[in-house]
């Protein structure tokens, strides 16, 4: 199977889908001539031309709303956020227009749009460019929220998201763009709402999404040296959530750590924990612990930025706690 970077996998997904369906267009800042701020759209302008790969002014509210309107009229736009931090400028159109149009029109207008781009922290980008906003979008009925962790998932989930007839918020990761992995060629489609067990284990469940999957896997590898076999469950889609996969794992391991890059308060992990306590209460042998980003705006200084984010040491510490190990 070909080995591609996460970035190349996303590019391949868009290229294949744009060949398959002429109603798909890509728009956003620097997606065309510049080949994408993070090169995810590299080569697409040359291949599909300026009517299908549209460089926009820096006007997130305007071009996202334009995309939603186009989706009401037979176009299937992929709207790139240079980073998801800027999606806050567009959130009125994502929430008030894209998410609600179907409902408030009594089922007349669905919005087949993908709003995609990187979320989370990079490397010392400071407070305004380092945040995980998935819980904001997960909160809204009418949206689907997808966050792939691997190149293979990135391709398979993006292709499915593009074909979905609902608005999909597809959050990538700047830190993951250069990571490599196996990516099936051609028609590789991963259904939304289906989790993936990234590592099998029977002692403890670690639920993690996006780049926290890599942190969880690193922690699990080290725990294995101590004889602890952690199961790493990657929901891949946060809404709809594959609660069954999470609950099944908890029933097997009886102990859970939930890891997320975002802030703790009202983070998506809180929703996972709610499901776990309700559906697997009798199976739990310890309180569920969460490892999250620090409850502060992201600092710039390298040491402080590191301390503000979950890492494998913090995950190991939480696992040891739920196992009541010293």
């Amino acid at each position, binding site marked *: 199977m070909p080995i591609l970077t996460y970035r190349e996998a996303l590019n391949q997904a868009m290229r294949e889908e744009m060949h398959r369906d002429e109603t798909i267009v890509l728009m956003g800042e620097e997606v065309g001539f510049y080949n994408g701020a993070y090169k995810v759209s590299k080569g697409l302008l040359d291949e599909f031309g300026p009517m299908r790969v549209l460089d926009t002014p820096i006007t997130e509210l*305007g071009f996202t709303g*334009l995309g939603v309107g186009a989706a009401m009229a037979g176009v299937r736009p992929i709207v790139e956020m240079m980073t998801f931090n800027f999606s806050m400028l567009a959130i009125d159109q994502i929430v008030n227009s894209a998410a609600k149009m179907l409902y408030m029109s*009594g089922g007349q207008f669905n919005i087949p749009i993908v709003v995609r781009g990187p979320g989370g922290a990079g490397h010392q980008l400071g407070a305004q460019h380092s945040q995980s906003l998935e819980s904001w979008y997960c909160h809204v009925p009418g949206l689907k929220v997808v966050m792939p962790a691997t190149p293979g998932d990135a391709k398979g989930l993006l292709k499915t998201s593009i074909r979905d007839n609902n608005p999909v918020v597809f959050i990538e990761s700047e830190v993951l763009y250069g990571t490599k992995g196996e990516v099936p060629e051609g028609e590789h489609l991963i259904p939304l709402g289906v989790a993936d067990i990234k590592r099998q284990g029977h002692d403890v469940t670690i639920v993690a999404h996006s780049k926290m999957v890599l942190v969880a896997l690193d922690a699990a590898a080290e725990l294995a040296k101590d004889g602890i076999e952690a199961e790493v469950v990657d929901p891949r889609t946060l809404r709809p959530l594959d609660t069954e996969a999470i609950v099944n794992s908890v029933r097997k391991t009886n102990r859970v750590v939930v890891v997320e890059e975002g802030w703790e308060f009202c983070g998506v992990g809180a929703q996972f924990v709610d499901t776990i306590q309700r559906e697997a209460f009798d199976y739990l042998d310890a309180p569920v612990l969460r490892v999250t980003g620090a409850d502060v705006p992201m600092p710039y200084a390298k040491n402080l930025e590191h301390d503000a984010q979950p890492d494998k040491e913090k995950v190991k510490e939480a696992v040891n706690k739920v196992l009541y190990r010293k």
Partner: protein
Amino acid sequence: MKSSNAATEPVNVTELLVGPGQPAAGTIEERARREDPAVLKTLLEQMLLIRRFEEKAAEIYQLGKIGGFCHLYIGQEAVAVGALSATHPDDYIFTSYREHGHALVRGMDPGEVMAELCGKQSGVSKGKGGSMHLFDRHRSFMGGHGIVGGQIPLAAGTAFASKYLKQPRVTLCFFGEAAVNIGSFHESLNLAALWKLPVVFICENNRFGMGTPIERASSLYELSQKACAYNMARTWVDGMDVLAVRETMKEAVSRAREQNAPTLIEARTYRYMGHSMSDPSHGHYRTKVEVEEQRRHDPIKQFSAALEAIDLVNQAYIDELDQKVRDTVEEAVAFAERSPQPDARELYTDVYVD
């Protein structure tokens, strides 16, 4: 007009309404003589239908049969009627939340519109939208939208779709004068001009954003000038003169359809009622005298007088037409009242599609 904002000078309303611009050439009578008589009669009937529909909506709102916010179009009828008369049936229409009139002119069934206002299953949006969210996919009626300016980027979007899919469909986007100060207006006008999109932006300047008059909200009173910043065609029109609106729109629609060039039109009109049914028709922000003065330019009175003057209609015809639309509105209310509420199972439908 007294202003509570010391930084703004009081402005004479009449001056604002006849400010610099291009007034319609000739009297209404002269222009009416050049139109097809059947069209003239339709325009009159549509304006009357809106007026009677809205009066009835106000009446049953007071009885508690309509809930929430309900924004009436009384006084502004000539804008929707004149503008939509210049469109094709498959041209896209976007509006704000003051959209009952546009929906009726588009041919949406008055009964189904009234049922939507009353939150009934038979409403145009199945009772899930309400007064502010009327939709009709088959008539390319793309919705009433409740966030000020929120529909403006969407309209740029359908215009983009027309261009991309090579369909000769123009988009009309209506909004109030308060929307010209919001970011989505400016971002959308820039995109529409930059990408040469077939869209006509119609600013219905009814003078007030809720209780705030234009001169306390915008540094510029001649609102179509906002288009200059985007190198876009612009004009203003007397929004109380249905034929003037129709003529102006014809030109703008043709510019959109044939040259993919957008236009910003300011239609100067006046809202007789409060911002919504929750507000008084006049209050501390305007006087009863001012409202009465504006009613003297009533679009329906002016137009029916012109049609009488050219001997196209007489008072008996107007009375008969009025009775006909009153009957239609009565039937609409009866239909809404006998329609069931949405089934409880509808709560969870239409959130996602397959």
